[in-house]
């Protein structure tokens, strides 16, 4: 597939939906509020931007007062912080990590490198536009952004979560074919992650018309099966 074809796929924003039952609504809002006030972040320290996170977490700026805590494993985390340039080899790992996180999950690209490759824009080995490969909620530009900027960005994300607008993670399920296509474009057709994204989308009713397509067909033809080991008597 040519690059130009991929660009034609447009991603629509998913509007915030409210349930009809008022109690359910209140409940949703409460959970949303809790989500915004408790964010566990996984900082994928790919580049120099990671150095700005310790001051943001420790006594000078103290992220914990906003309910933001560092976590070490993708299973536990809500936010994936990508702090710097992402080489193609790293990108595979970033995608693996992103897919292992539990939804709702958010991605923040910190530093200019995550926006457009930054100072590595000419490099054959650096991925340029991260949101081609998985949805990114927020970019914090700068080389590197200071802790104030990081916290400012996180607070913006907080507002979005509270308003139930930070739904980009649903895009990944609904437009999986598009993202997978871009990934295959870089990694070749044998590309496969251990996470069964299609199965997840079906389990949680997150599949849309664009979940499956020509790229997922390629994936399904080459992938080693990911069926869980079920108990059998």
């Amino acid at each position, binding site marked *: 597939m040519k690059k130009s074809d991929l660009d034609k796929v447009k991603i629509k924003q998913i509007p915030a939906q409210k349930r009809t039952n008022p109690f359910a609504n209140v409940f949703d809002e409460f959970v949303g509020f809790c989500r915004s006030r408790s964010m566990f972040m996984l900082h994928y320290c790919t580049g120099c931007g990671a150095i700005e996170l310790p001051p943001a977490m420790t006594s000078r700026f103290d992220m914990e007062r906003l309910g933001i805590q560092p976590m070490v494993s993708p299973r536990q985390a809500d936010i994936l912080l990508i702090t710097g340039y992402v080489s193609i080899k790293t990108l595979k790992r970033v995608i*693996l990590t992103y897919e292992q996180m539990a939804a709702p999950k958010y991605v923040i690209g910190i530093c200019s490198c995550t926006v457009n490759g930054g100072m590595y824009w000419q490099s054959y080995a650096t991925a340029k536009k991260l949101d081609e490969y998985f949805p990114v909620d927020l970019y914090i530009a700068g080389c590197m952004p200071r802790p104030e900027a990081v916290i400012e960005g996180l607070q913006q994300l907080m507002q979005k979560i509270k308003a139930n607008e930070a739904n980009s993670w649903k895009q990944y399920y609904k437009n999986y074919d598009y993202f997978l296509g871009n990934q295959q474009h870089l990694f070749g057709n044998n590309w496969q992650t251990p996470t069964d994204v299609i199965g997840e989308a079906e389990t949680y009713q997150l599949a849309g018309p664009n979940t499956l397509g020509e790229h997922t067909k390629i994936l399904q033809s080459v992938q080693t099966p990911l069926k869980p080991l079920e108990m059998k008597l």
Partner: protein
Amino acid sequence: MNTLDALLLISLLTALASGLGQGHRLIGWITALLFSLQFVAIMVMGSLGYGGAVVEASISLSIFGHPVSWRFDGLSWFFALITIGAALASSIFAAGSWAEDYRKHGGKPGLLQFAIALNVFTMLLLLASGDLLTLFIGWELASWSSLLLMMVAGGKAKNFALRYIVYATGGAMAVLAGLGIIFQLTGSFAYADLAAIAPSLSTLQIVSLSILFVFGFGIKLGLMPFHLWQADAYAETPGPGAAFLGAISSRMALFAIAVVLVQLIGLVKLINIEIPFTFLSFRDLLLWVAALTIIFTTFTALRQNDARRLLAWHGIGQGGYMLIGILLLDPLGSAGGLMHIFNYATYQAALFLAVSAVIYRTKTADLNQLGGLVTRMPLTFLVMLIGIIGLAGIPPMNGFVSKWLIYRSLIVEGMPLLFIATVIGTLGTILSVYKLIHNTFLGQLRLEHEQIREVPWSMLLPMLVLSTVVFVTGFMPGLVLDWVVAAQAALGIPQVAHHLGGIESAHGSLDMIWISGVLFSGFGIGALLFYSGNKTKHVHQLDNYAGGHFLTADTRYHYTNNFYAGLMHYIGSWYRNSFQWLESSLVSVVSLLSGFTQILFHSFHPALFLLITATLSLYFFAG
């Protein structure tokens, strides 16, 4: 013909039938059927378990003018119930698919059944003994028949079995010497005569008698320092045989010790004997031998990488708990010790059978070669889970109740160091049983095990029944405590006050019905909380956090080797194999001596050698 006659007859019949019908295809099932008949017979005698009158066998013999008689009381019944139950479970397990598989690999399942049946018969004879001579005869028969069971597998097992019989012969000599002393004192082998003169025995006589009997019987129990033979010999016995041996065989020693030391000689005398230059009484010494047995063998088990050896080593350690309980003599402690025999037999048999089931499917018991079997053998996993909770002595299984009684009694008796020793044993058990279940059933499923299935029903049934017993008697310990109280009465020691749920006491009681009930309601609340979250999606085992690494099926992603590395960094250097060294040096000394005599005999004139020996012995006897 009374019920005891019937029981012994059926038992003999079982042994004969399984011995004669070796080649028959259905011999396994026939033996199992006969075992269930024995089980019915023992159930018919059930009133014994609730304090019924002693049953005398109608047959009695006389050897050199000494009467040999058999009878059953509450204690015998309690042990016999466990024996026959264990044999029944093992026999059913060994009857069906297991036997076919075993035969295919060159084994003789009929021989195994025969060995088990013979063991049961001889053990029943031992349990039914009505005087010391009968006791000794039963003891010897049981020893030799368990040798047969250990040798069934052949090969390596033969060496271990021979090692056992060397120890056992030593033990038999000691018992014989003890009997000799008693015969000199009383002129008869009757229980009553010994009990009658017991109060008038001197300290030296009591100490020498108890040392001889504890040494003689303790070898079978695997008491330190005679514990080396047991684990290897049991582990190499084919699965169901190991389950039977592990569950009950060595507990015969406890029966004998209880009868001779507790019932006849009387422990109170031992308590009153102070060991010079120490603070210890003679009983404390025995208690400490038992406690050290617990600690040493449990921590040896922690290092094992073979599932069967791990269990077999634990078997020796658990024997220590029972001995401590019985020697404690107060109602709580002795009830704990006796109850532990029952409890232990149920979960040890279940565990050995579960391990055998794993071996049946995977052909290995190496804990570094397994993993992830829970998805393939979930019921075996359940059996093992219940078994290890029992073995570790964690509520709500029955192992907890008997251990609780022992702890409680140690607190009441004011024995802090022994209490700590028993708890260290329990903690070590928890560590090693987790290693057992983790390395076999949890973690990553190996590629070569993807296709295996659960074991057939003939094997599952005994395992499931045993684990049900483990659970039910943990939930309602009163069921077993009734029998224990009858056994206590037979031994003539004070009886524990109990009810269906456990123990009632002014200084801290135990009610397992409430505790299990609350525990399971707690699980219910936990489940409610858990399922209030969104539904889960099961993922493949390779969808796993590996620091961003892509896992493949051919790479092992399972931590098994040197499982407690951190602990072993610290205590690893404490394992010095001193007892192995002691044993091998003894063997060397003996072989050196025999070689020396042989040289003497061959290089000198044999006739001269014989002459010297003859003169010396004449001098010895005449002078």
